[in-house]
């Protein structure tokens, strides 16, 4: 879920499903609905406008669920820290289970983190 990111992390997330990284071979997939998800990948600092949608999306994911903060902005607001439109880091809005550092993180690092979560 994009909570206000610059789309850099999204490009890296999209590329983990490319033939080079092929995260689908580990059973990792993007889903169209939060109801179908095991976890949320949240990117970007949480902007004021996206805080409520993020909470709603989090509530829509069935238990047991995990939240992964992808990228430096999601971890601690990164270069946007203190900006007037920023509510805070992802962990200020919803509980975060795993953080993936980087600006943007390497696709291999994302795949490694997700495999660690799934235990594959």
């Amino acid at each position, binding site marked *: 879920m994009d909570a206000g990111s610059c789309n850099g992390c999204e490009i890296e997330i999209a590329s983990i499903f490319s*033939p080079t990284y*092929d995260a*689908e*071979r*580990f*059973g990792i997939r*993007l*889903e*169209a*609905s939060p*109801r*179908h998800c*095991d976890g949320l990948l949240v990117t970007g600092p949480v902007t004021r406008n996206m805080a409520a949608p993020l909470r709603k999306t989090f509530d*829509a994911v*069935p*238990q*047991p669920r995990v939240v992964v903060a992808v990228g430096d902005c999601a971890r601690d607001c990164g270069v946007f820290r203190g900006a007037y439109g920023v509510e805070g880091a992802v962990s200020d809005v919803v509980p975060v289970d795993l953080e993936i550092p980087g600006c943007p993180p390497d696709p291999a690092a994302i795949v490694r983190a997700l495999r660690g979560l799934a235990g594959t």
Partner: protein
Amino acid sequence: MSTGWSITSMSAISLLQVVLVIVGGPLLLGFMRKVRCRMEGRVGPPVHQPLLDLRKMAGRERTRPEHASWVFPLAPVVLVATTLVVAAVAPLLATDPAFGWSADLFAVVFLLLLGSVSLALGALDTGTAFGGMGASRAMTIGALAEPALLVAILALSVPAHSSNLPTIIIRSLAHPAWLATPERVLALVAFVIVIVAESGRLPVDNPSTHLELTMIHEAMMLEYAGPDLALVKLAESMRLVVLFTLLADLFVPWGIATSPGPWHLAVALASTAGKLVVLGAALAVFEVTVAKLRLFRVPELLAGAFVLATLAVLSTLVVP
């Protein structure tokens, strides 16, 4: 029908068919995904991944939209139940499962339609925009595809003088020359188009899309979670196996068990698995090479299927 079938062997066949459809459905989807991934230059998930996904979903929380009524949780159950009934009575492995006399072509088509309608009602019940949109699209396609399916099988039932599926298959086996007649070929093309539309595959619907606006079947299950989602996904794969097996048994019936005995059933099981692999691989390869049709072009495709099926029926009347 054929003699020598005891109640126990007939029930055993029905049970075997149900197991085949429940286990074979997810495996078939996994196999098709594997073929697609390989053609796209990827390794892809293991073939049994859909089974693992189903097990995982079954153990998750069952969420329910705020405004949903009792229709919402009931829809997946009806969808699975109707498919299971078809899997039990239809001649998938042998020409005489328990209650084979009830496997009338109208009954089978209407049971499948009942499942589709219940899922559409469940989607409407969520009160979300995408649920309603998916339901309306699925019904538009269903209203065009189901008559084509009905008429296509009707073309096969005319020379067999029966609308009972086992009887059609037994009489086709007795008259191999029927299998290459014009009406068979026309009905086959119509049947294939209907299967693609009914099971929500490309070019009618894209099962792996993430864009809600282009969804048809997927849009209806957006709100389902946990065990309900597992039921809907299971039913989806079961319907694909049922339709594929009916296609194979009606048009290439060799291999289906016509007399009882474990040996005949083993041959039937092997030949059905072989047919499913061939059909699944063919559909997966086809899906990689085509793009999705615009929604407004889909009725034209299905109307074409209906015309072909009607021509098939007409040619049975013209060609004696």
